[in-house]
């Protein structure tokens, strides 16, 4: 396994990161200055420009985690396991920011920081399952078992993604259903789309960095392995 040089994933990630920076700057200007405040919610609606893109980044990262986990179980290539780890960990990051920004938005609009609304509850369950993925991996020493069990947890966790998406349609409660661009002011749609692109590129950059970490740590783990004692060298 090569540990030297920059992988193609790292190169693509660097490009994504470099693109994300100016786009997020433009998105911040559009969302905080250019787009008008909402007629009903006023300024607080501007939270949408970080809240919704957080979920786009979450979905993207969890999809990467899920697809790579399925492929890992089929092909057992370690690189697929590294990418699955990267997807899940970055997904957990944006899942957390999505929940927190939603909670901050909920306080002035609903009057509460948290409520057991189906959308909020299912996203919290999704986060707990993927945090469980990270914990399970941390407790397993054997890389093969870590990859296999991790992949199973990631696949199970991904089952919650469509449930989260459809929860606002299946159980209509406090959280609004998905908006259509046709019912939202054009300038708001532009600001939102720019931020969505910025967050998606940012998630790609972070996944590429996390992939590199996993690749290098696995290489070091392999070099540390002592075949005589079937354990780590002291």
């Amino acid at each position, binding site marked *: 396994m090569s*540990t*030297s040089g920059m992988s193609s994933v790292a190169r693509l990630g660097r490009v994504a990161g470099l693109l994300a920076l100016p786009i997020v700057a433009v998105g*911040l200007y559009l969302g*905080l200055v250019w787009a008008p*405040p*909402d*007629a*009903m*919610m*006023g*300024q*607080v609606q*501007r*939270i949408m420009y*970080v*809240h919704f893109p*957080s979920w786009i980044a979450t979905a993207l990262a969890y999809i990467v985690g899920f697809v790579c986990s399925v492929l890992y179980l089929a092909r057992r290539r370690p690189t697929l396991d590294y990418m699955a780890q990267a997807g899940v960990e970055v997904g957990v*990051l944006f899942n*957390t*920011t999505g929940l*927190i*920004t939603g909670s*901050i*938005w909920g*306080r*002035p*609009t609903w009057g509460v920081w948290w409520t057991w609304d189906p959308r909020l509850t299912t996203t919290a369950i999704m986060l707990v399952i993927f945090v469980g993925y990270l914990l399970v991996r941390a407790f397993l020493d054997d890389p093969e078992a870590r990859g296999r069990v991790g992949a199973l947890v990631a696949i199970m966790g991904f089952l919650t993604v469509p449930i989260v998406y459809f929860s606002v349609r299946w159980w209509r409660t406090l959280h609004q259903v998905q908006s259509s661009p046709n019912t939202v002011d054009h300038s708001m749609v532009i600001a939102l789309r720019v931020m969505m692109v910025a967050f998606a590129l*940012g998630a790609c950059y*972070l996944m590429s*960095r*996390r992939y*590199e*970490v996993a690749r*290098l*740590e696995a*290489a*070091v783990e392999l*070099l*540390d392995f002592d075949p005589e004692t079937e354990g780590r060298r002291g």
Partner: protein
Amino acid sequence: MGSVGVDNFGFVVAAYVVTATFVIAYTWRLTRRLARARQAAAGRRGEA
């Protein structure tokens, strides 16, 4: 329902600051971890 308006701009600032803090902290942690992993990999290659 009336506007919850301008008075609540603090919530907007809080949401943006929290998001930026999490993303920057995670990026910083990854950068440090990557540097450590590169150093360890280079060290092991040197030993081999």
